[in-house]
């Protein structure tokens, strides 16, 4: 039973990573109908910029963290104005290929800077490690999971209550109708992309704070899980991504613990296939409009 609980605790931390990356992705996909494959890379960019500014340039942890999050937002903004905006929104495949290109470019650019090595990341703060009745956990993990809950619930409530959130939901449901009620759809999309990028950046820093390492291609693995969580939860559902992300993290952790790590990815992708067959709109998704 102790093992089981320990796996659950570790799973919550992994799940938090999935949640923080997926809520931004699903927000952007929901609002713009755009598959931004490069989204998870912003998480990696934030960590490397943090590393560079905090450690190599000696600006310290706080400035480094701010720079890392700002860099994620900036790259997201550039991605929106220089790539996404130039492509016809109805051409999903073109979007997919273009953002995939951006993803490869970012990963290899960063890799070039660090000579294709996995880098050690300094912690954001000194973590304490607890050992309560044979269960191990750290303040880093607690902060990660807590922040994830706050960010996901906060985003969901913001979408529900704020004016901009309402406009975002309107654009998300029906872009044509949104234009008829004079919503500046481009502005709303830009806000969605930048917000999503910043959240991914925050996620990157919080996760690196527990793993204490990062490599330029870390996003490949995260991307795959991000798609799985978004699809299983239902694209556009932030609440769904929170539940499914944490759940997937825990399931994966249990799988690795009891069956071995070769089964880890099978679970997430298997769930994705089953959900696509049984409930294509996702567990928490709204039914897709036809026409």
């Amino acid at each position, binding site marked *: 039973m102790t093992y089981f609980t320990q796996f659950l605790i570790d799973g919550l931390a992994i799940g938090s990573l999935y949640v923080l990356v997926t809520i931004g992705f699903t927000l952007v996909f929901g609002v713009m109908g755009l598959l931004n494959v490069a989204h998870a890379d912003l998480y990696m960019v934030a960590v490397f910029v943090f590393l560079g500014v905090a450690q190599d340039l000696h600006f310290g942890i706080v400035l480094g963290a701010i720079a890392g999050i700002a860099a994620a937002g900036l790259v997201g903004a550039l991605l929106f104005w220089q790539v996404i905006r130039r492509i016809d929104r109805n051409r999903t495949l073109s979007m997919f290929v273009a953002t995939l290109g951006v993803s490869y470019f970012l990963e290899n650019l960063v890799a070039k800077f660090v000579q294709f090595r996995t880098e050690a990341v300094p912690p954001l703060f000194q973590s304490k490690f607890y050992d309560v009745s044979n269960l191990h956990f750290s303040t880093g993990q607690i902060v990660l999971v807590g922040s994830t809950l706050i960010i996901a619930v906060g985003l969901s409530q913001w979408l529900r209550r704020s004016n901009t959130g*309402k406009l975002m939901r309107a654009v998300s449901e029906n872009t044509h109708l949104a234009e008829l*009620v004079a919503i500046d759809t481009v502005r709303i999309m830009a806000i969605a992309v930048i917000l999503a990028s910043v959240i991914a950046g925050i996620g990157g820093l919080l996760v690196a704070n527990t793993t204490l390492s990062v490599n330029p291609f870390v996003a490949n693995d995260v991307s795959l899980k991000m798609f799985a969580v978004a699809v299983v939860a239902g694209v556009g559902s932030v609440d769904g991504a929170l539940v499914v992300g944490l759940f997937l993290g825990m399931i994966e952790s249990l799988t690795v613990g009891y069956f071995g790590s070769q089964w880890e990815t099978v679970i997430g992708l298997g769930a994705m296939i089953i959900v696509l067959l049984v409930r294509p709109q996702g567990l928490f998704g*709204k039914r897709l409009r036809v026409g």
Partner: protein
Amino acid sequence: MDDPKSARGVMDFVGVSRTALEVTSLSVNYGAIRAVQDVSLDVPRQGITALVGANGAGKSSILRALAGIVPECHGSIKLNGVDVSKLPARKRVIDHGIVLVPEGRGVFTTMTVRENLELGLLIGDRRRALGATTTFDLEEVYNLFPILRERGDKRAQYLSGGEQQMLAISRSLLMSPALLLVDEPSMGLAPQLVRRIFDVMSNVFAQHKVTVLLVEQDTKIALEIASFAYLLERGVISLAAPSAVLREDPRLKIAYLGVASTILSGDASDNNRGNR
């Protein structure tokens, strides 16, 4: 002034026109298909003008072109003397008050009734700041359609078709329209409901002096509330007359039965523009 940027004051002074909307040689294409061909029409200020015709005649395409949401259209669209044909849809709404109540379910179904109305108010506030005069507040709208007050916290997807149509119309009114384009409000609704919605529309439009261009397949009811009407056939205007006159014209029935009106009427182009 209905429109802050218009030269209406000057025009009234020289007595030029009671015309709010002036469309000249409008054509709409969808790829190789020409849906609307060389249509010219006028909509007088503060009245209801109807655009009737059979299914597929191009009525909705004209409204969508006026709202600025068709991929390709040519011709000039003047509202109160200002050419808006090159403006994006958003500018037409905010700066000129051209508001479309779209065909079918023109509401955000995943949002609540109140949120849908708030979206209208948001634009209405900006329009009022620019000097728009047709103003409505939530209270007035709730008085028009009390059911919307009751259903305030319900998602619009749980409303009946008629209630959704009431919601779409209400939201559009809250946007302070200078020109309201109403597309097939009767679509898919029970006859008694159509009657009720048309009664409310006709009252509120007259009372608040809203300028309306109404597209409707149900000719009978459209001609009851409109003062002037155009008959559209296969993308071309074949008749233009006061509603009372058009109602009695045999060519109206023929247009709906699908017989070529040119057999009876000769050259239709004489009637291309209402002569008022």
